[in-house]
């Protein structure tokens, strides 16, 4: 139960168009009960007291569900603990005297906004391309009208648990967004409500994913290892199957959606 002193190497970059560099800071008196982001809060207070601008980083809910926090910590998106977002990583995982390297999620499709913050709007574009069920308010039948077997609903939930943080992209040597996209495809493919648009959806989403500049999957599965929510790589196989089908079947998919997966 002793406080820690740490050496931090942190990526600093004034804005998207500026050059960035790693900078070294000493931070003192960190409690083992603090979260990683609270440790950065302490650093920022110390920096400001010295007249230095604080390190910019994203976070909001700080309970592992909003997906806003990011960071590559010692080379791993969301740090060393499996199934844990950065905001839920705690300092008891580290020890006094440790050196910690902190960088943004790096990918061509996630440009740096400042320091450790990146722009993940490309994910919004993928969902907007087709990651929904077309169901206007007012048109819904009774919720129990279509029974959905529990196992199927559970599988849909497992895929829908994705928080859209982008760790999968940051972990991938190709900066591929296959796991993210496949999670949404699988969520809706497991439900009867998702069937009418199933092939049109996968085709449009894969096209948008390619257009945003994400790379291809070459089966490293780093994405699955980095995912804080345990999204299974198996969904990528499902997406690829559906995509292959869509190329032959979905003739009416949106214009310009002929990209390769």
């Amino acid at each position: 139960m002793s406080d820690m002193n740490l050496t931090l190497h942190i990526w600093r970059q004034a804005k998207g168009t500026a050059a960035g560099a790693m900078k070294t800071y000493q931070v003192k008196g960190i409690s083992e009960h603090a979260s990683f982001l609270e440790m950065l809060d302490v650093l920022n207070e110390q920096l400001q007291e010295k007249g230095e601008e604080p390190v910019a980083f994203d976070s909001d809910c700080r309970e592992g569900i909003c997906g806003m926090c990011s960071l590559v910590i010692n080379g791993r998106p969301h740090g060393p603990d499996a199934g844990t977002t950065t905001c839920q990583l705690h300092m008891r995982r580290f020890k006094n005297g440790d050196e910690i390297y902190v960088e943004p999620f790096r990918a061509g499709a996630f440009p740096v906004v400042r320091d450790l913050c990146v722009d993940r709007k490309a994910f919004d574009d993928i969902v907007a391309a087709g990651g929904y069920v077309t169901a206007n308010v007012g048109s819904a039948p009774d919720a129990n009208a279509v029974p959905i077997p529990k196992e199927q609903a559970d599988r849909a939930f497992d895929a829908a648990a994705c928080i859209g943080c982008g760790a999968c992209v940051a972990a991938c040597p190709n900066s591929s967004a296959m796991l993210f996209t496949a999670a949404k495809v699988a969520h809706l493919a497991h439900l009867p409500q998702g069937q009418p648009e199933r092939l049109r959806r996968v085709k449009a989403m894969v096209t948008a994913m390619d257009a945003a500049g994400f790379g291809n999957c070459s089966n490293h599965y780093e994405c699955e290892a980095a995912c804080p929510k345990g999204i299974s790589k198996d969904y990528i196989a499902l997406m690829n199957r559906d995509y292959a089908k869509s190329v032959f079947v979905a003739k009416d998919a949106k214009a310009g959606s002929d990209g390769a997966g």
Partner: protein
Amino acid sequence: MNLDARIPSGPIAEKWNRAKFELKLVNPANKRKYSVIVVGSGLAGGAAAATLAELGYNVACFCFQDTPRRAHSIAAQGGINAAKNYQNDGDSIHRLFYDTVKGGDFRAREANVHRLAEVSVDIIDQCVAQGVPFAREYGGTLANRSFGGAQVSRTFYARGQTGQQLLIGVYQALARQIAAGKVTMFNRTEMLDVVTVDGRAAGIVVRDLVTGKIESHSAHAVILATGGYGNVFYLSTNAMGSNVTATYRAYKRGAAFANPCYTQIHPTCIPVSGDYQSKLTLMSESLRNDGRIWVPKKAEDVAKASKDPASIPDEDRDYYLERKYPSYGNLSPRDIASRAAKEACDDGRGVGPGGRGVYLDFRDAIKRDSQAKIAEKYGNLFDMYARITGENPYRQPMRIYPAVHYTMGGLWVDYHLQSTIPGMFVLGEANFSDHGANRLGASALMQGLADGYFIISYTLGHYLAGINAATGKVGTDHPEFKRVEADVKGRVDKLMSIGAKGKRTVDSFHKALGNIMWEKCGMARTKEGLTEALKAIPALREEFWQDVKVLGERETFNQSLEKAGRVADFLEFAELMCQDALEREESCGGHFRTEYQEAGEAKRDDDRFCHVAAWEYQGEDKKPVRHVEPLTFETVKLATRSYK
């Protein structure tokens, strides 16, 4: 100030139907001629933006996060109530209505609550149609569980992540409208002011958080769905970015703020562990089904109990909720359980660091049902607890303490959800309307989606039908926009110029304010304490405007500047909260005035306070005026809540 709630006439169960028929419509071809601003992208705002766009209106939607999918609705765990009666256990719209009015300690407007209960059933249908993966039974039908304040199982849920799944449904509907070009989305954009022209809402002034540019947007109507103000306490279960700025700025431009003192303190949160702490984490209410809450009977046992809780024999433990409220026991309502925990700690019997904690013990449940059974029910919560505290809750009891969780107060709205500024509507937690002085579990999600999916489309249409599409929208080149923009810029400049020389960080001021509010306007309030707070807050505010440190530049991505603006508003709003708490000389729901109690229980004063307090801003350093909207209970009989 006109506080006409515009409640439709007729019997309570027919009011909404009648309103739907009487409200004017906008012809489908004309809808595209109208534009609407929606601030906030959570369950209320996101649902409103998507639904209005589906109808054909042109929507501009704003959120301060990097994508609309991160709004704080996402963090809701437990579930969403709806009067479906799928369990055949006697539920009905009337029962949900009744439970909500009673749970709110008779401080909500009956007509609004009844409408909420009516549309609750449609919400579940809509969410399922969108692909929300609610929990199901093996036969394929929807599963339910029960929550506090109800005797039926009407809560729909998606594991412990109901808010997330509902918000993803909203986000997907919103994304579809963004792709269709009907919603223009502004991410990382914060609303800093409202513009009114000739007394009507004409638009907003925002700051692009990436470039720092101040810009104006105009529309035929403005919808605020910007959530609650729990972060006035600094430590709360709210997200880091949750703030009062949008609603407070609207208040300063003429919107009445109703019942700001109504805040909900949730009894089961992980206690504060140090002064570095940035937020508090909720442990779901459902844990109280199996966990037993206790502290040592004797203060001298505290050290021993903190070190090794198992060493305290049963006869030396005080299971205080079971002792004081034998019929509800550990499942007593939130406000009551919270106050009892505070009392035990004030009595010197709190456990853990700083003595601000009580035990939530699963020893007996594990002995009775096996560890595997308990893990199956609460595994994810136990894991989260272990991750945050480093303690194993299967071996030793959880330490919990109450924390600020939700705010029932908000901008005053009428039955149409319109504020006292015509053309400005307020949805979700940002308004005050449905929960009275205490919100029941699983009702926040219900209200957000009710407002966004099912109510605003009718009432906004009625408003727009009375406005000329061509002449009813003022351009952002209007002098009033320029004036408000100049105000906003002036304020940002002031923060930056003080900030360059200031010595004390924004967080340090925020923490100091949080301390005042928690001590003086938290779980138990007194005239004396509130009076002290009303002196301490202006002093702190003055210091803030002389010594706050904000580094960096104005026209960049500057998180210190963002926070400084929010904390500056909290520093003013806190005073309004304390004023409201001081003048409400009764105890009701989450508002507990120590002077007004009977045998330790909250004592309402229906003769003097059966009303909504709506505050009207009067200008810098002037006391706001307290207006009153009387509440009449025609359907549910006024009664004292008892849980003994």
